[in-house]
């Protein structure tokens, strides 16, 4: 093989693909890398969004350590994550399992569960705000049915407001998980399941020992997405409660937004944003770790 031919092949194999990828990579670097660098830079400044930023060293981080609202928001994010890692996942898994066993009408049930997901966030949040309205929402129906004891100030009671908002998001979101599980179930090796049944295993045992282990890659993906999304949660809280009552539904993202937009502190808001990025980074590192341990992720 001539040197020229070898060089041409080398070019084709190793450099040409990168050349094709270059525009996308440059765009990615600009769109993702730029704001990340900007956020890191701003977190060390006192920028008010108007005047030129001044470097303040670790002052913002010191403030963060003593910031009560940050801890409240962080705790709420963790609660939010706990809700989303359990309720919708269990609901979606059960429903997907049931739908997968149906011979006729599968498409209908799949569509019904997925419909809420195609509604826009604003529409869903406004809809649930109406449902939670203490003067005209679900409370009125409960009172009409003689179930007054169930009537609550759904987003006005600090003890349940976060769960009420999360439930609205969950209602909108869980159909997406159903679809992910159904896709995962389509990849299952049916012969293993059939073998287990022949061996006399009951439905629950088949599910626990055969189906669920095979769904592990889907579950891991879902958990990774849910954890990262939980730390970025913003829209439902912002539309329905804006973090209230008090700080009962304040999340890191809503707190950051308030600081940057209402309180003219995008410098400090960047510090809060950085912590959100750090949490997301830790999650990804964690999943990379379990992947290296041999999990099929």
């Amino acid at each position: 093989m001539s040197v020229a031919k070898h060089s041409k092949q080398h070019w084709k194999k190793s450099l040409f693909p990168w050349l094709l990828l270059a525009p996308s990579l440059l765009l990615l670097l600009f769109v993702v890398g730029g704001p990340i660098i900007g956020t890191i830079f701003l977190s060390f400044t006192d920028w008010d969004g108007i005047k030129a930023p001044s470097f303040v060293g670790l002052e913002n981080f010191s403030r963060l350590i003593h910031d009560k609202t940050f801890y409240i928001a962080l705790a709420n994010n963790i609660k939010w994550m706990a809700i989303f890692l359990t309720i919708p996942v269990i609901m979606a898994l059960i429903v997907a399992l049931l739908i997968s066993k149906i011979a006729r009408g599968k498409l209908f049930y799949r569509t019904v569960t997925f419909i809420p997901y195609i509604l826009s966030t604003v529409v869903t949040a406004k809809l649930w705000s109406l449902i939670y309205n203490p003067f005209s929402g679900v409370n009125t129906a409960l009172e009409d049915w003689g179930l007054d004891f169930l009537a609550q100030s759904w987003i006005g009671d600090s003890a349940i407001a976060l769960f009420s908002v999360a439930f609205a998001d969950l209602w909108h979101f869980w159909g997406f998980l159903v679809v992910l599980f159904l896709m995962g179930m389509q990849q299952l090796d049916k012969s293993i399941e059939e073998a287990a049944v022949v061996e006399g295993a009951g439905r629950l045992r088949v599910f626990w020992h055969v189906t669920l282990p095979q769904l592990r890659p889907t579950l891991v993906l879902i958990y990774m997405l849910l954890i990262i999304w939980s730390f970025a949660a913003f829209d439902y809280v912002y539309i329905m409660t804006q973090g209230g009552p008090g700080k009962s539904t304040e999340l890191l993202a809503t707190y950051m937004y308030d600081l940057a937009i209402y309180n003219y502190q995008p410098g400090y808001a960047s510090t809060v944003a950085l912590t959100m990025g750090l949490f997301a980074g830790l999650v990804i590192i964690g999943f990379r770790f379990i992947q290296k341990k041999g999990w099929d992720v």
Partner: protein
Amino acid sequence: MKNKVTVVLLLMVIALITSACGGANDNDAAQTDDEAVEISWMTYPPFTPEYETMLKDQIAAFEDEHPNIKIDWITNDDAVQLTRQQLAAGAGPDVVYADGPMTLRRFASAGYLEPLTDQVDTYKWNDRFYDWALSTGYQDGELYGLPKSYESVVVWYNKDMFAENGWDIPTNLKELQSLNQTIQDEDIIPIAFGASDYRASNEWALTLMYNAYLGKDAMKDVISTEMKWNDDLVKEATQTWVDMWQNGDVSDKQSHAITNDDAWSLFNNGQAAMKIEGTWASNRVMGDAQNFDVGFFVMPALREGIEENIPLALGGSTGINANSEHKEEAIVFLDWLHDIEASEMEVKLGTFNPLVDLDIANVEDVAPITKDIFNEITSYMEKDQVGYASWTYWPPSANYYLWDNIEAVFIGQMSVDELLDQVQKEAEKDKEEGLLFEFE
């Protein structure tokens, strides 16, 4: 070069932060004309179709009078935030709209606005505007913007309900508390108020209560930090509002769980007797939403020995971009926006520019409620019984902390003392940063 890199990075970060909530641009650009100079002007989208028509009429009238100037009117849901980002990058509209004097002054102190002091005599602005209004556009002795639309916060009430039940408008705190109890006894909510969709609206109620309890002089002392925000008097004012809320007088203790529209529904349906909101709400009572007569009253003095007052604010301020290539033309448009012809067009929709010669009697087709509001505010101005609304006068960080945390006090997560101690700290920070309102 370093500065340019910094600015680009800042813009990208801001774009990231605001992208989730930003709206789309809606360019209503004027027709391109090669010979005409084009001036850009960005505002929030008009809140009613009538307002949009009026603004378009204003622009058309201006362009008729000034064929050499075309207006590129841009609307954006986050107009002020977007302007802020654009100005930081050395760009932005020629005519800069700010959502009040405080924002205008922030822009001015950053060097984004063109000083207009030399134009004061040229356009006779000293004679045209009320002194209190024009003074809000000054920063370090230079004028940077003109005042737009003054407003206040009042108590709207169901006139028919009051008449049927023989209820009188209260004249002091005791009467207000007694009225609230009487209304509650009839299974009606005394005051409708909702803030779940816009928690900053808590400042409307705080403005009303603080001015009514402190009086205009003490309010001014607090704003200028001559009196502390955690002074006993401010504590009493705050506690009075908290007590009313906890007594169920305000949306049956659900103001934090309902939106402002929900609160209006309570009022419109006769489930609530009164509604606290700004004078801008006249638009809501001019249509057919209510099947009863709506009136309004100024919150009475809630403490012995002070006169009642009407807190004043400016709904907007407008200046000229220091980087504009057409400053001269932009100033012509700015002046026109605030002259008597344009202002009379706005009066019909309940927007009052602070012009000395603006007389509502000269304007046709004005709704009676709009006339009443205009005349009421004017009479208080003439009597010099005007207070200070939060969004124009109060220290910004202190004000933010107040409205951001008052609900925590309502529901017992925070005490009045804790709230006001922190507000005082925020006010001191504002003072250090030169953000206190400069009273002349």
